[in-house]
Structures are given as C-alpha cells and as structure tokens.
C-alpha cells in the first residue's frame, strides 16, 4: 500500500520531502494520474494540495511571485498576470481543458519538466527564477539554468519549488507566444515558441526566445536572440533569426511530428514574432 502524507505548510512539506526522498510529490496530480496505469506505484506520496502557503500570487514593484502550488485557473483569472504577463495566461489556457487547469499547478509543470510543458517556453522568455526550499535553506535559481536534460532538473532530492518569480516586463517589451499542437485544443505540442523582444527607437535592444518540443528540454534560442539584438525588427532581421535558429536546434521526428516540420515552424514563429514586434 502506498503511504500518504498531507502537510499543511511548506515547512512541513519540506520536512516530509527530506524524510522520504523516494516518495512521489503530488501537486495537482495531473501528471501522476496520467502515469498511474503505466508506472509502478510509488512507495509513498507527499500531497502538497493542503499547503496554504504554496498558493497565491503576490505582486511587488518589479516582479510577480507565483507560489508553486498555484493552479493554472487561478493564474488565468488573476488581474496582474493578465495585465503584465498575457503570454503566461495564453499558455495556461492551452493546458488540457478547464478541469486540468483547475488542478494542474505551475510548480508541477516545472518539476515534470517535459520538453512539451506548455508554460515552460514562456518562463524562459520572461526570464523567470525559481525560489527553491529545502532543510538546508532557500536558494534562487534562474529558470533558464534549471532544466538539465530530458525531464531532468537541478532540483535536489530534498528540495521543493516554493515559488516562481517573474520580472514584470516594461511597455517597450513585446511579448509573443504560440503553441502548435496536434489539434486546436487539449493537445500535446509539436512546437512552442515564446518571445520577449525589447524595442527602443525602432531597434531591438535585446530578445529572449523560449522554445518547446524542439529539443530534449525547453530551451532558449540564444543564437537567434543574438541575431535579433541591435537590429531593426524587419524582414532582414527575421530572416537572420530564422537562419540562426536553424544552426542551433535539431528537432527530432517522433509520433507527433517530423524534424523538418518542427524546424520550419519554429523558424516561422520566431520570424513572425520579430515582424510583429516591428509592427506594434
């Protein structure tokens, strides 16, 4: 029989996690339930759903701090997220259907760290950081350093994500996001791209591109970002971005899509984001 603990606070959860490093951590359960038929039963479960301090969204002057156990529906409905981070709302709306959005959490999406996790390219483009908690204390890790490989992360066996900290973009930063899935709703991604493009005086000062489903983990397209920087958001820049991207990603063919398609569409999306930033 599977053992079960339901801590009421983050501190209790951290203690439970440290005491049972081989147990499964249950947040919203949307990954756990999918795997229930295919994986051996875990020896125990630490259920975070009861931790009140793992839920909620707090705005400070420069950031939004989203507690890791906050479900997507709460994020979708939060006025500050809608105002400042519309691409996070757009990505969240693509996660399963409303029932899944009501249970699935931002922290769960990050820890599962699937290459097709819907919110992850957005967190990369927004330059999010993670507040991690363990019995050893707290540490802040930039999200773009967090994913190490296919479903692997820097999260230690005794660690939990306490919160996601997202800097608030200013008005000169154009945010874009698009998911290409296997159908219009409730689908797994074939390609996802998110962008934050900072434009001043008709020139791109910097750009951050987050991509999903084109590598073993969600990635930043750094070469494409460099190709965009210090140039006008025009067709020539868009082409340079597309070309740079071709040099830095090698998507695979799998059950859902094909390598050539993934590369072409990823290029098209980033090129479109650049052009749209110029048009805005």
């Amino acid at each position, binding site marked *: 029989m599977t053992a079960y603990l339901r801590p009421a606070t983050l501190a209790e959860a951290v203690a439970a996690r440290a005491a049972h490093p081989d147990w499964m951590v249950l947040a919203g359960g949307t990954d756990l339930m*999918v795997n229930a*038929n295919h994986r051996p039963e875990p020896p125990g479960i630490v259920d975070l759903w009861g931790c009140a301090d793992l839920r909620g969204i707090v705005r400070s002057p420069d950031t939004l701090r989203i507690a890791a156990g906050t479900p997507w529906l709460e994020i979708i409905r939060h006025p500050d997220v809608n105002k400042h981070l519309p691409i996070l709302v757009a990505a969240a709306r693509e996660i399963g259907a409303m029932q899944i959005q009501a249970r699935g959490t931002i922290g769960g999406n990050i820890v599962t760290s699937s290459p097709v996790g819907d919110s992850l390219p957005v967190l990369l483009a927004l330059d999010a950081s993670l507040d991690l908690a363990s019995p050893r204390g707290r540490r802040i890790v930039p999200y773009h350093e967090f994913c190490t490989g296919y479903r692997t992360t820097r999260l230690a066996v005794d660690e939990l994500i306490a919160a996601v900290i997202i800097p608030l973009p200013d008005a000169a930063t154009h945010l874009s996001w*698009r998911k*290409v899935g*296997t*159908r*219009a*709703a*409730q*689908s*797994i991604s*074939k*390609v996802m791209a998110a962008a934050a493009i900072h434009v001043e005086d008709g020139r791109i000062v910097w750009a951050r591109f987050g991509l999903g489903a084109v590598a073993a983990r969600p990635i930043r397209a750094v070469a494409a970002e460099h190709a965009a920087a210090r140039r006008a958001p025009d067709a020539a820049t868009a082409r340079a971005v597309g070309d740079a991207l071709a040099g830095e990603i090698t998507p695979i063919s799998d*059950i*859902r*899509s*094909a390598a*050539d*398609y993934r590369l*072409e*569409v990823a290029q*098209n*999306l980033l090129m*479109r984001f650049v*052009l*749209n930033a110029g*048009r805005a």
Partner: protein
Amino acid sequence: MQTQSGGPVGQSVPRVDGVAKVTGTARYLDDLDLPGAQHGVTVRSTIAHGTFDGLDRDPAFDWTGITVVTADQLGWGKGLAAGGFGENYIAMLDTDQPALLPMGGCIKHVDEPLALVAAPTRARALAARAALTPRQTAKPPVLTVDDALAADIKLYKDDNVFKSFLIRKGHVDDDEFEIAMAGAATVIEGTYETGAQEQMYIETQAMAAWPDAGGLRIAGSMQCPYYVHKAMKVLLGCGPDEVAVAQTVTGGGFGGKEEYPSMLAAHCAMLASAVGGPVKMVYDRDEDIAATTKRHPSRVRHRLGLRSDGSICAIDVDVIMDGGAYLTLSPVVLSRGVLHAAGPYRCDVTRVRGRAVATNHPPHGAFRGFGAPQTTFAYERQIDKAASHHGVAPWEFRDRHALRAGDTTATGQLLEASVGTDDIIRAIRDVAGAAPARDGINRHGAPVKRGRGFAFYFHGAGFTGSGEQRLAGRATVRATADGRFEVLASSTDMGQGAITIFTQIAAGALGVAPELVRVPDPATDEVPDSGPTVASRTCMVVGGLVERAARTLRLRIEAWADTAGVKGDLGALAAAMFGRKAELDPQHGGIAETVQYEPPPGIHWDDATYTGQAYPCYGWAGCLVDVEVDLDTREVALLRCVHAVDVGKAINPVIVKGQIEGGTVQALGWAVLENIVYKDGRVANANMTNCIVPTFADIPELETVIVECPYPFGPSGAKGVGEIPMDGPAAAVANALGDALGVAFDRIPVMPEDIARALRRGDA
C-alpha cells in the same frame, strides 16, 4: 404507406434513453453487478509475424487464485454439453481467425490473443499477465499492400488476396474497355490513399459471460447480438438454445462493435468455462486502440476519361484495401467500396476492380461508411480535377454530370425513385454564399490562404444486392397485459437513436402515444433476428418491419374489438383482449405480430457479375467546406461546413441532424487529424494523447440541410442516414485545400507536415 398526420413520426421526440444517459443511471457492461465475477485480461503477441512457441510463467509470482487459459487446454471438438468447446475460430465469413492462437500456431499480427488470464480483481489479473511471457519466433512480416500482392510471404492462400471484384459496364473485356478509354479527349489519372481510422467509441469493448441453465449467457457492448450468437454456437459447439447473447447499454460503435465483440465474447466464454462462474473483460483504451479493428487503409487508382464537352466516356477504378491479418469482414467492406467507386456520375463504360489483401496488421474492419468513404475520396478528387481541367466551377460540373432518375449506375441499376440529386445540388447552391477571401492575416499575425471545396456522393442503403432477402430479418410488435406495447428487434441502440425511432414508428403505426411503447434491450433468447445493426439499414429495413408488424397488430386488435364489441383506445382494447386468454399468442406470451422482410418488387441482382440492383435505394449528399491554412504553421482551420443529406424522411429530425453532424465530424477528422501510425505492424500511437480525434474546438460551423426524397418502401419514406455523412467531407476538405494552396492533396490525412512538404517542394 403514410402514417396518420399528427403522429410521432417526423417529430423530434426526446431520446427515450436520454435521461438515463445524461443522469448516469444507464448501466453499461462495467456497471453491471455480477456477483463473484472475475476479471479477464488478454496476453498478446508482440511480433507481427512468427510462431507462438510457448508461455513462460514467472515462478516468483504468487499464482494463487489465478486462472490461465491457453487454446490447448479447451477440449476442442467435444462441444459445450461435454464440457469442451467446438471449433477454434471466429465464425464470420471464413474460418481463418483463431479465437485464441494455439501453441505452435502462426502469429499474424501484433496484439494477437495468445492466452487469457482471470483473477478476482483486475489488478491481480494485470499483475498475472505481467508475469506471463510468450515465447515467440519472429518471421519477416508483410506490412504494405505491395508486399502483400508480391506474395513472397504467403499469409492467405497463394496470393494474399482475401477477395477480388471486377465490375464491367458497357464492355465485355479489357480490350474493349481500353478502346472506350482511348476515345477520351482527356484522361484524368490519379492515385489516392486513405489511412486507417479508429472508431474511438466512448465505451471501450466490454463483455461478460457466465454459465446459465446448463448453457452460457453472454452480455456486453455490441452492435449485433446474432453475430455474436452465431460465433458462439461454433466456438462452443452447441445448439442455438444453449447460448444466449444480450446487448447491454452500448456507448458507441461506429462499426467497431460489429465483428470484434465476437472475439471478446469468445474469450469471456473460455474464461467463464475455466473458472466455472462469471467473468468480465473490459479493455482499457490503449489496448482497445492497439488491438481492435480500424477502417481499412486504401489505395485507389482512378482514370477518368472525358469527352471534349466534359462528359464522362469511361471510368476505370482499381481499389486495394489492406485487410490486415485475417479475412474478417474485408470482402464485404471491399464490396461496398467497389460498388460506390465509379461515383454518382453518368458514364456508359466503367470498369471497377478491387482487391482486399492480407498483411500483418491487426485486422481492419467495419467502420461507418464501410469502404465507401475510401472510394468516394478518390472519385471526388478526380471530379474536382476534371472540373478544373474544363474550367467549369466544381459544383456546376457535378450538376451537369450527376446521376438523375432514369440513369444507370456502374452496376447497371436503373435509378427510378428517390434520387435526391437535384434537391442536393439546389440545397448547397442556396446556402453556399460567397467563397472566403483567398488571402488574409489571422489573429497571430500570420498570413493565411483560404479555399472552398465541394463533394457530391451517394450511399446505398441497406445490405448489398440480395443480402436483405437472404437475411430475411424479422421483427415483432406485441401488446402487454397492461395495455402497452413492445418492439422486439435485434437492432441495437449504440447511441444513434434506434430505440427512439422504433418507438416513434411503432407508436405512429399503432396510433398510440410514444409513452405506451417500449423497446427492450435485445437478447437472442427474447427477440427475433432482425439482422445486424449495420449498413444504414436499421431505420429503413428494420424500421419498415416494425411499422408493418405494428400495423398488422393494430388491425388484429381492432378487428377483435369490432367482433367483441369493445370500445376504447388501442391500449385499452389490447388490455381487454388480454382478458380473453384464447386470444393470446402462446409463443410470445401475449398478443404479438412478427413480420419478415419482403423485398420490393422487381429487385434483380447477379452476385456472379456484380450487376443489377446493388442497393434497394441510395441516399444522396453534398458537402461544402471552407478552409484556411496558416502559412506560418501549415495548420488547417476548418472555417465552415455545409452538409446536405437526402434521408428520404427524417423520422426524428434532431436525431437525423445528430447523425449528420457526428458523421461529418468523423469525416473531417479522418481528413486532417486522425493519423494511425503503424510501426513494424504495431499501432505506435495507441493512446488518446497521440491518437488524435477532433474536439469541439476543431469543428467548424456546421450547417445541416435535411433533404427528403422519400423511398416508397421505407417507413414513411425513410432511407439510411447512418453512414452517408462519413463518405464525402474528406474529399471536400482536400478539394478546398487544393483550391486554397494550388496543390493537389491526394492522400489523407493531410497533416500540417504534409502541407509543409508540399509547399516546400513547390507543388503549386
């Protein structure tokens, strides 16, 4: 033939099963309380071709309470009465498919049943299955129709051909045919391919069996109780009264529960016999997708010979279907495919060839449309190319050349009545409106191309040729002691509304309120054999039997009442009649009328030459689809779909609309979303995450036009509606994509990946 006006026929009366289903009180097989029932699971092959050498048990596993059944322990040939079984094959059309593969036998597909396990809980049964490992020796498999036809590896007879057809019209041999084709000013040639498709019924395959009164009782999710009954008689080696088969509330079929339930029933019977008590088997979704039947993949070569005025002088079609590892229903699917392959167009010289071949894929089988969607896709792509070649608008071209009353089909069938062509053409024209603007920008800022496509098609209602006559289906309507009425037929309601329309038809003919009529769930020991619930025949054929039985019963009751001097409504008269025991029909314990199918006069069909009246009548349909392609992502958005369908008479317009919308959505999904991926003979995307079917977000604005060109021999003029909506929309989508992008899409599903490649190649 008309029922009285003001009756329930033609009214959208609420579904009689609606409240139970919506409130969750309907009891599907897995909801049934079967005390002491054990759970059965199946051990399956993991190779596409080879031999089954044995079954290893993990000695470390606790086998207490576990029953394992292999084919070798079942006492074949002894028969049920002697505690054994009959013959080890699934009796349908051939004897080639074992119910359970014997050791040493030839494995012909991945997920072929090799052994069965029963345990008191499902978890224990699954654990036991994991502790069983079949020993298999792999051989090279046949995974393409070309390899099948090369016949280097023989899977079925010497040529791997399950069935072939050749239909000639207006010529006697190939030389004469080629002379006619040579007379064409233009020949449009194309090769068209369609993919496998999963039915994806909501309720997975589910069945139970238990020993009952010295025999065996089977209950489960199915379309055709008498198909299962026939298979069980052979498998068990017993008489018709020793096994009974009952349908439980069925959550969708679409053909997927036409032949496969016999396999599941066989397995339940084997396990129930081994454990001596009830056993139920409910497939999980992944197993259902991987192991059960799908729509036949097809390849159709089509040549269309056109005169300079655009009229058709010769049609040549060659149809190949991948039947999978066993014959199952492939000959019948192919038959319907070839009979529709020349399309509803005027042509005096046609040649249609067809072959269904054996491969090492899991058997393909029945699916809504039953072969016709495959050949319809080919001819409606061809007609579009012909229209384009002649510079004639696509719908106008169809109007000019479509069959009308007085014309003959490819089998030489003279179309007399109930030809909906003109009404369909007009209906689509009336609502079409302007085509969408070719170029645009979507909400993502991406450029888009838009286009419009059409398709026109027909679908034979009921069984092919003399099938209905051979089958001689029967239905009963009876009065009960409380002054109510029951319809007894083996047609099942799988969600399509059969029992509601039977209620309406019977109530209309009896002249009573629908609330007084009940349609019990069919069981073979309670209802006559009305034939299977397939082929768009339930309303037209069995509904016709119900109407006639009800009318006969009404006349008998009224005649008795006249003689007896009793007055009142029919229910009261029936109740009064019940009081006089002498009037009761001993066979049905009441007052009952059973009628048998009688063919309309003048039907002629020649099975040897495949000529004559292929179907009693046809449904006719037209479809318009507007599409938009995102040039950044190559994704297809279906903007609009208009579907006009001639159903003869809509007994229940809401149900008819539901049938049309549901079939349309399945067809649209088949066109652009549903992609069964076979890898080494295995379904590689056997889960709902990756085996994609449309959601509501994928469905365009659907406009349904019901056209009624009555069929004189159907109930109130009704003919079939179940399948025809599946036939044409895929071609309309491909035609619309061609219109939008200037690229020919001759293979479905058309995935964004295909569009990307076509545009990169510069096919435009």
